[in-house]
């Protein structure tokens, strides 16, 4: 196992995203579809934060940006 | 009858309150239909402690059957016994000595206070305040001690017998009652401070569970429950028995008919009862405490009815005699049963919390409903 870094975070983000996609496609119930959407939104937020942490550390954009889809 | 567990077609929840539930103060079973928190319907299911007291009384002698009635409304045992004793006395055309009359009224009013005090604590507990319950028991304990000394029992006293009372009062009776009066007068303002004046309590009770005068009459509500709706139904005033016609006291009548006014009526009644006791305690006449009766009582053939005002309302004893050793038929009219019947009407559209408050304000004693 490697030292966790950006790629690990992005992998988690992508996996969450596609788990969300899978749930969104298989479920036929509004509430469960909403839950899958939440997963997708969260994967996006996770990516924002990860990029802020590992790539563009000079600005606090990540938390601010991630606040927007959260609302 | 609705299915007892589950939901209705409209998505309303059906819940069993009881037979064992903290708010029913006994084994009353209510099947309530809920729309969210709002009560849509209440169906009382009775019979969990039916002991067939009426039937039992038919096989007991005229001295014995009185004791069974102590187990009905156990909080007004004295007053129940009084009604039965009066029915038998009517049949035998017995003249009850003055001393016995006074003792009966004294005991009855003490019982009424004890019952109302317990109700006060229990009602506060229903609404969620625990502390008043213990404060109420402090005063109730004093009354129970008085009862224990004179009658030999604390709850089911069985003190009234046809023709008077069973024993003479205890020598300490006078002093103890005086002490109680002083103590209770001191504590009543405290009760008001603790519960009556409380903003939350008022918010919980005002305008909740309104029972109009017409409904109260048509459901046969009596006692404080009926009087809070403005019904003029205090038997002590309407059809005075014993020495009540010679006493100075007021009939408390409320206006709004809501939970708060039922509460206030009982609080005022405690003061009136205290007033009655104060009038009598220094004026207990000397003389016999019991009229001379035969060892075996035989009530002449006929029908006799007596009614009294218990702590819960109009209690009636209908006695049919065929001239034998035991009553031919006995029918009790218990106030709790009629008061309970108004519950469904009163509670509809209110919240679950109100159901508990309203039930508390009706002051139901379940063995009184299920005889």
């Amino acid at each position, binding site marked *: 196992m490697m030292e966790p870094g950006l790629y690990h975070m992005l992998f988690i983000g992508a996996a969450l995203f596609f788990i969300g996609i899978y749930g969104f496609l298989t479920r036929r119930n509004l509430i469960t579809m909403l839950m899958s959407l939440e997963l997708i939104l969260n994967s996006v937020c996770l990516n924002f*934060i990860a990029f802020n942490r590992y790539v563009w550390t000079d600005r606090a954009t990540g938390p601010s940006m991630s606040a927007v889809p959260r609302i | 009858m609705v299915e007892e567990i589950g939901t209705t077609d409209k998505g309303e929840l059906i819940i069993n309150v009881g037979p064992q539930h903290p708010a029913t103060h006994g084994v009353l079973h209510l099947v309530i239909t809920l729309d969210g928190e709002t009560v849509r319907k209440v169906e009382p299911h009775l019979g969990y402690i039916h002991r067939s007291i009426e039937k039992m009384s038919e096989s007991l002698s005229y001295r014995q059957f009185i004791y069974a009635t102590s187990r009905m409304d156990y909080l007004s045992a004295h007053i129940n016994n009084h009604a039965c004793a009066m029915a038998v006395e009517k049949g035998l055309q017995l003249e009850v000595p003055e001393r016995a009359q006074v003792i009966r009224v004294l005991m009855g009013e003490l019982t009424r206070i004890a019952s109302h005090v317990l109700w006060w604590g229990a009602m506060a507990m229903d609404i969620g305040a625990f502390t008043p319950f213990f404060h109420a028991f402090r005063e109730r304990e004093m009354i129970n001690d008085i009862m224990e000394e004179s009658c030999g029992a604390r709850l089911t006293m069985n003190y009234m017998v046809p023709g008077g009372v069973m024993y003479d009062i205890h020598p300490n009776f006078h002093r103890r009652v005086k002490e109680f009066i002083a103590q209770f007068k001191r504590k009543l303002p405290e009760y008001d401070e603790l519960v009556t004046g409380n903003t939350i309590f008022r918010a919980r009770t005002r305008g909740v569970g309104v029972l109009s005068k017409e409904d109260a009459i048509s459901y046969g509500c009596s006692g404080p429950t009926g009087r809070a709706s403005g019904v003029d139904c205090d038997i002590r005033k309407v059809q005075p028995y014993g020495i009540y016609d010679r006493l100075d006291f007021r009939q408390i009548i409320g206006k709004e008919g809501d939970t708060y006014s039922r509460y206030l009526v009982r609080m005022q009644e405690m003061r009136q009862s205290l007033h009655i006791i104060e009038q009598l305690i220094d004026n207990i006449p000397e003389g016999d405490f019991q009229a001379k009766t035969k060892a075996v009582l035989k009530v002449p053939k006929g029908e006799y009815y007596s009614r009294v005002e218990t702590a819960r309302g109009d209690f009636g004893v209908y006695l049919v005699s065929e001239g034998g050793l035991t009553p031919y038929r006995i029918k009790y009219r218990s106030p709790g049963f009629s008061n309970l019947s108004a519950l469904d009407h009163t509670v509809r559209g209110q919240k679950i919390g109100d159901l508990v408050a309203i039930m508390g304000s009706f002051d139901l004693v379940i063995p009184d409903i299920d005889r």
Partner: protein
Amino acid sequence: MKGETIVFYLLAALTLVSAAMAVGTRRIFRSAVYLLSSLIGIAGLYFWMRFEFAAAVQIVVYAGGIAVLIIFSVFLTQRAGDDMPTPPMLRTIAAAGAALLGMGLVMLQLVAHPFPTPAVAEVDRSVSAIGRRMLATGDDGFALPFEVVSLLLLAAMIGCIVIAMRAKPNQP
């Protein structure tokens, strides 16, 4: 291996496993609980990356708000105890295929793409810095999105009030 690394893998496992269970389980209430635990795993990852504010907000918003909202809507609209019907086999396979395909493509891109390593020292990520940024009107300020979101929320709020108002006259 350092303690931090273990914590990271634990958090990642929590997040992904509970996310998978959230979309896989057939009981809707459990699904909501798994979703919540996945989101809390993400909050843990934020903590791990030292973004405490984002983590706390994540927990506040999701545990305190959205999860409760979802659970309430489950209570109010669903027969929460019943199992949901299993989706048809074909759809499951199709969805799984699509997800796996997408995942593969993204992973290919990820591996191929080199990300620049940070040259500049880390900036202040404290709450006050985020607050300043949220209300800054300059080049990288977030005042505009912030206001747009407020407008959206206002619209949603008015919509809620309107919906709630309409039920009034019918009530007894």
